[in-house]
């Protein structure tokens, strides 16, 4: 797997820490944001290969941030990572341009799989 730049956008410090630990073991370069607004700013600066985006966040939530990122970069690969895995949310996320949806709590294998899938 090639070395990738990854943005984690999640208001949970625990989720960011756990995911960052895993991604760094996989030799990814990781950026962190705790809400959608900060996530969009970092995206514009870094242009990461993949974004892991929570849905429920203060200020700007994940779906709004997803739309902002896709408007800025239609080729952006944004994977939603959320505890609200309802069919409605999944459909909404895919309509907004998310490339995948992982329900929390995730397991490490799911993260490895999506990285392999979208690393090309």
């Amino acid at each position, binding site marked *: 797997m090639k070395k990738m730049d990854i943005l984690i956008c999640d*208001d*949970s*410090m*625990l*989720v960011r*820490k*756990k995911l960052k630990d895993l991604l760094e073991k996989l030799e990814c370069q990781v950026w962190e944001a705790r809400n959608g607004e900060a996530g969009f700013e970092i995206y514009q600066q870094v242009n990461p290969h993949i974004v892991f985006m929570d*849905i*429920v*966040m*203060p200020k700007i939530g994940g779906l709004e941030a997803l739309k902002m990122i896709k408007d800025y970069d239609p080729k952006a690969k944004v994977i939603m990572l*959320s*505890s*609200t*895995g*309802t*069919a*409605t949310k999944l459909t909404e996320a895919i309509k907004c341009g998310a490339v995948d949806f992982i*329900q*929390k*709590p*995730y*397991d490490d*294998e799911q993260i490895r799989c999506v990285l392999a899938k979208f690393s090309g």
Partner: protein
Amino acid sequence: MYNQYFGQYLLNKELLSAEQLRDILNRERLTRPRLGLLAIDAGLLTVAQVEKIHSLQHAMDKKFGEIAVEKNFLTIKQVEDLLITQRGRRLKLSQAIVDAGYLSLSRLEAVWEQYKAETNLADGKIDTLYGNLDNIVRAVVDFSSAGTKAKLLYEYIALMLRIIPRFFDEEPILTLSNEKVQGTLISQTMTGVISISTGVIMNDELLLEMAKRYSGEELIEVNELALDSIAEFLNETNGIFTVNMSESGFELNLEPQEVQGDVLPSPRAYRIPIEISCGTIDLFICIGDKII
């Protein structure tokens, strides 16, 4: 699993104290063979498959056997056989209670008959209790004042009672304690056709212990990561609740969690004390209003 429910009944009837019940449940837990281990022993599942099922159980409100069948890892017949083996090997609650001298055998038999009558439980249908955990919650807490919304409250508490053992390896007990917990409130609101706010209050000692177990991190004080760990636990529990509600036709949206120290919840919030081995969690649920 029925052990926990019958034990809860004994506590509710004041036939066992909370301390005695925890002692009994711990004995039962220590002798209970896990379904996954039995399946590995029988050569039916690999370690990786069992780990996958355990991982999915954290994100879904489903039993081990249900997920194993859905994933085509096991057939229904294989799950039934494993459950029979599991039941045969574990310590019976009644045996543990009598061995510990908490109740005599004759007294226990009389209570068991009463319990079966009150829960409409026929002999040989013990496993149906899992799906009817609501009945046990209804025997302990009374939400009749919530009218038609009471069902949501019972379902939420039943879900919390199923989730706690998965994340913390603990058998939770619903208590009738009037002693309110002083500590940090972590809450979250779900909005949609109806607004539901849920929150937990726990003291620092319990918060730290639960945060350590949930996060797997080396925490030594109640810091932002510890608070965030409990907030994330609540978020994931509520996430599963929204999925359950969505499948029943009710769409709910989660709002970000809130953390507040030493606050008094709204008098409109229902308080449900849940006891685990390291302390008491005051669970609050409020319909149509925020917890604070």
